[in-house]
């Protein structure tokens, strides 16, 4: 999706994509060039909703564009306000399972790499400060609190 067709103001989505490999469950994280913050960081696949999209279709699209994965199931986890003093639209969080690999489709000028961490390592990284992205921390902790990971 290029910048011209990507409209602001429809809310955002973030996806906790889980992949079971033998006895371990892996979380799909991306490392994105986050120019606003002056360095890149590990986070869940996420993005803005487009006009006419439901949160569910936006979540499926962002997961596919950023990681190449399509998910067999995509369940709503929660929604939250990332900047309630400034932004009106909430972010919707989904849990994606049954992942099938495909090709990434990045925007022009977008640079990101895909990483898979075990659930244990990702949760440890929230606690020890290796993951500092608020939505990623929130979704991982909430998923654990609900017994999903």
């Amino acid at each position: 999706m290029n910048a011209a067709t990507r409209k602001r103001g429809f809310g955002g989505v973030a996806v906790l994509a889980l992949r079971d490999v033998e006895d371990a469950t892996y979380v799909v994280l991306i490392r994105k060039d986050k120019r606003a913050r002056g360095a890149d960081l590990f986070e869940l696949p996420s993005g803005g909703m487009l006009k006419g999209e439901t949160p569910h279709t936006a979540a499926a699209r962002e997961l596919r564009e950023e990681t190449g994965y399509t998910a067999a199931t995509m369940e709503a986890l929660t929604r939250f306000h990332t900047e309630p003093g400034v932004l009106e639209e909430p972010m919707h969080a989904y849990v994606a399972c049954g992942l099938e690999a495909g090709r990434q489709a990045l925007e022009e000028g977008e640079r990101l790499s895909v990483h898979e961490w075990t659930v244990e390592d990702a949760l440890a990284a929230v606690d020890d400060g290796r993951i500092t992205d608020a939505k990623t921390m929130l979704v991982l902790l909430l998923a654990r609190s609900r017994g999903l990971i």
Partner: protein
Amino acid sequence: MDGPLELKQVGERLVLKGRAFDFVELTLRDEEGKEHRRQVVKHPGSVVILPILEGVAEETKQKKAEPLTPALSPEGRGRGARIVMIRNSRYALGCKLDELPAGTCEAGEAPEKTAAREVREETGYEAATLEYLGRFHTTPGMTDELMHAYVARGLTHVGQDLDEGEHVSVREWTAEDALAAVDVGRITDAKTILVLLWARSRGIL
């Protein structure tokens, strides 16, 4: 944690000087020399505070002979722990949200000072101790805002001191109720959800 940035920043231009934040446009150059522009908000940093009321100390002071209330564990944790939250009018949303007290660092202000100031101004409680919980990027796609989280204890009520036009009501919650409200999605403020879950995960709540 930090890796190299793939795009090189070659320019920065002020687009809008806001009352609280500046809006700037960055010019980035990729490997082939092509330029890309990103508009972002420059932020001085912020704080969020988890104020924990220590009922144990006060109750034992008043009634020394009596045992601790059974609901409250000796560490002030668990089912009986009480926290102070605010109900904030959010005009961007057109509604009120239950949140932990929070605020923006003033120019040159250390985050711990901001935390002490904001908890007092917004909740009316002065904290004897502020314990650092951690920090996070609130919305890294649009701003460099780094938010620092503190746990405030030893609270003494001194009265709110709100900015003009600010309407904030103070509510006490049990930790159990607040965590339940997070779980069912009734609390929707990201920093509040994150800090409550983080505090539980660390054994603070």
